[in-house]
């Protein structure tokens, strides 16, 4: 009855020029089914569009699906823009075909855990949930 808990808000986007957004849609639906409010912005999003939407929507988490190989450019760019817009607290996570050493390097740049293709969505969900319980006010 009381407004004690609120849903985690997540922006799911597919940056870059590559292909379809089936994977991102599956992730968006899975996060919704896990009780999250998912703002889905679709294909071909530039880092600027992603950061602007994330700030306007006051999301807690940004999830990016990047299959184009441009992850080393895109993830840090979104991080940088969010920091500039006053939201260094937003978790950036996501997935794609990303070599382990790239993942380490991205983590050092303030990106959260990244998931390889075919990872069950349950893993992403529990990662976001445990991050939220540590970082968000109740």
């Amino acid at each position, binding site marked *: 009855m*009381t*407004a004690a808990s609120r849903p985690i808000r997540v922006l799911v986007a597919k940056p870059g020029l590559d292909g379809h957004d089936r994977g991102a849609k599956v992730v968006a639906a899975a996060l*919704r089914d896990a*009780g999250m409010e*998912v*703002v889905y912005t679709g294909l071909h999003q530039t880092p600027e*569009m992603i950061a602007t939407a994330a700030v*306007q929507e006051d999301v807690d988490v940004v999830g990016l699906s990047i299959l184009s190989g441009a992850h080393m450019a895109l993830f840090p760019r979104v991080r940088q823009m969010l920091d500039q817009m006053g939201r260094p607290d937003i978790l950036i996570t996501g997935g794609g075909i990303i070599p382990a050493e790239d993942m380490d390097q991205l983590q050092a740049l303030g990106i959260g855990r990244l998931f390889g293709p075919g990872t069950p969505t349950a893993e992403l969900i529990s990662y976001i949930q445990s991050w939220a319980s540590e970082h968000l006010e109740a």
Partner: protein
Amino acid sequence: MNFDPLIARLRAGNTAALARAISVVENERPGFERLLAEVHHSLGRARRIGITGPPGAGKSTLVERLVAAYRQAGQRVAVVAVDPTSPFTGGALLGDRIRMESVALDDGVYIRSMGSRGSVGGLATTTREVCDLLDAANFDRILVETVGVGQSELDVAGMTDSTVLVLVPESGDGIQTLKSGVIEVADLFVVNKADRPGAEQLRRDLEVTLGLRRRAGRQADAVLWKHPVLLTVATKGDGISELIAALDRHHAWLLESGTLQERRTRRLLHRTREVVDRATRRWVWEEARADQRIAERLEDISAGRVSPYEVAAEVLGGLKQGERT
């Protein structure tokens, strides 16, 4: 919590601050009503326009076009897009931004997606208060998109100055059922997807229905608003300038006839009742620790040792008596 710094940043046009203030209200965080009280005296500038209709009718596409047109006229525009929350999981998929991409990077545009959360219809209980914050943040137009399900058309009409009902040619079959309720609250009708067959027919049917209603009308002729029925092709931008002009005419009529003042007063009455209602609920559920006490007695209720009525009386009996006048 002291919201003064947040309010100052919001008024200064800081988007992150506005976005955070909206979350404070949406989540009904402690003190959110003080935040609203702070901004209340500076409201009333923005025109609030509701866009409602069945899923897939083209509401978001139409909103994007309206935003672009208002921007060309130099107005700052905010969009609130509400989508239903799953009653089972509490989650929601908010996808209206997909259709608003062309205006997404414009500094004079703010777009916010909301889940309907606890409320049954297509609107969240705090949507009208979110509009207050946008009004305080100096937007000239606030467009509220809601899916027309259940009572939500009525709800959106209760919180906006003008309500646009968006239909499509395929809605024609349902026009009989539309007559009850929905037609009464819409100020403007749009038949979108007019590139498809049947649009003209639906327009004629609507006009007949509206004409009959007008003839049986309860209002005096002088103040009667003649509901326009407009054809649009949102994907191409056809009919948008006519819609903008009709919205301007409606606003002028609202002012002249005194209806705007009447609607705003009615909203304020509703708002005041809502605040009292919310405070009452909070008082009962928190003060009486109602959830906890019900949980403690649940086994007894379930086993038939005590009835729900007796437990409710126990819970309420535990409340301190409020001051009575």
